């Protein structure tokens, strides 16, 4: 009796299984790599109505974050400043720069400057700036080195895993209160950070919520 299946069919099951495994590995690593804020959000750097340069204002001029983001210590929102805040200086300095025209128009007319939001927690997340900066979490932990950015970009993923890293081990991130707005500050070594962090966490009774309702409502 002749063979029903030709000889090459002997290797087909093996080949199909290997091909399926390769396909599954590729697809799932693709999803793991792309379907996360690490890919979708990080690097977002839109054009703004005025190309505000944080590096110039913070490093060269030496302004404090709170000059413009005044509410950060007392409110859930750090706040984007009103045009009048810009005009405190730009009424005199570079007062005819074409780049600042939207600010002058807004100051005259009262119409808002339509800044493009870059960092945005999902709306089912209730993040409070004041609660964090008043307990030694620096701007740099979530926003990256904004003080060195000429164009602001989304630097950290701000995914839930990102939040939980610090909520699990706050001692690795908290710093003395007078260093919160000093974005370049770093503990001398990781061990010194953890040692100091433990003390601060105990002193302030820091107990970051790990239950769902801590952040989701």
């Amino acid at each position: 009796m002749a063979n029903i299946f030709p000889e090459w069919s002997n290797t087909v099951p093996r080949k199909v299984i290997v091909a399926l495994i390769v396909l599954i590995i590729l697809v799932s690593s693709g999803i793991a790599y792309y379907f996360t804020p690490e890919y979708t959000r990080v690097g977002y750097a839109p054009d703004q109505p005025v190309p505000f340069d944080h590096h110039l204002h913070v490093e060269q001029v030496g302004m404090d974050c709170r000059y413009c983001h005044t509410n950060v210590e007392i409110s859930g929102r750090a706040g984007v400043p009103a045009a009048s805040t810009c005009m405190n200086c730009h009424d005199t300095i570079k007062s005819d720069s074409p780049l600042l025209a939207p600010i002058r128009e807004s100051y005259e007319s009262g119409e808002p400057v339509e800044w493009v939001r870059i960092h945005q927690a999902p709306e089912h997340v209730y993040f409070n700036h004041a609660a964090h900066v008043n307990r030694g979490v620096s701007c740099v932990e979530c926003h990256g080195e904004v003080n060195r950015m000429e164009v602001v970009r989304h630097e950290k993923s701000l995914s839930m895993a990102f939040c939980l890293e610090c909520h699990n081990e706050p001692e690795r991130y908290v710093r003395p209160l007078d260093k919160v707005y000093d974005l370049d500050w770093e503990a001398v070594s990781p061990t010194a950070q953890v040692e100091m962090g433990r003390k601060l966490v105990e002193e302030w009774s820091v107990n970051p919520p790990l239950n769902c309702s801590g952040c989701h409502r």
Partner: protein
Amino acid sequence: MRYFYAILLFLVVAVLAIAGFRGQLSKKPPVLLFGDMHEQPKFRAQDSSSLFPDRRADRPAVPGTVPFVNAKQETYPFLAPRDRFREDRYLTTGEIGDGSVGETDFGAGFPIRITHELMLQGERRYEIHCAVCHGRTGNGEGITRQYGMIATPSFHDTRLREMSDGEIYSVIVHGRGTMGEYGSKLTVEERWAVTAYVRALQLAGHASPEDVPEALREGMGL
């Protein structure tokens, strides 16, 4: 089989070429992969809204609105408006008299108790909001002078040393000349704290080694 792997390789290269890598700069808004509840039909602070002609979701206070504190906010002060209405005219404006005369009349003295904490608070606020122009010592040589802000006076001039506390307070609230208003950035207490700190700077600008308490002199090399 070979074709299958060739197509697979081509697909991988194609995905990498189109989607790129993590962290690449992009001007396009982030893609929402699972949008459920991510964007909700509600407004958050400083959102835009198509409901109102000025496209602001935040509604400006109606002229004449007076912030008040209700019973719940008395119990939980963090719920209260940052700066509530208070009857005391000098405390909130730095002015005295009934305000009927054309000339504004500024009072002297501090309507709140000056403590070490208040001075430290004044120092912090001064360094954030004032030092950029007035300089950390109040000599008017802040960084903005190098960029063309030439009109900033020194606190150590006779005119400013003789200025009343109420007037300094009022200038902080409303601004004067090229100086903008800082009333929107500072609470009543913070404004008086800054006023007190300005007074301390003026004192320090005209002090002699004898004014430093004996115990502190050594640490300052006096």
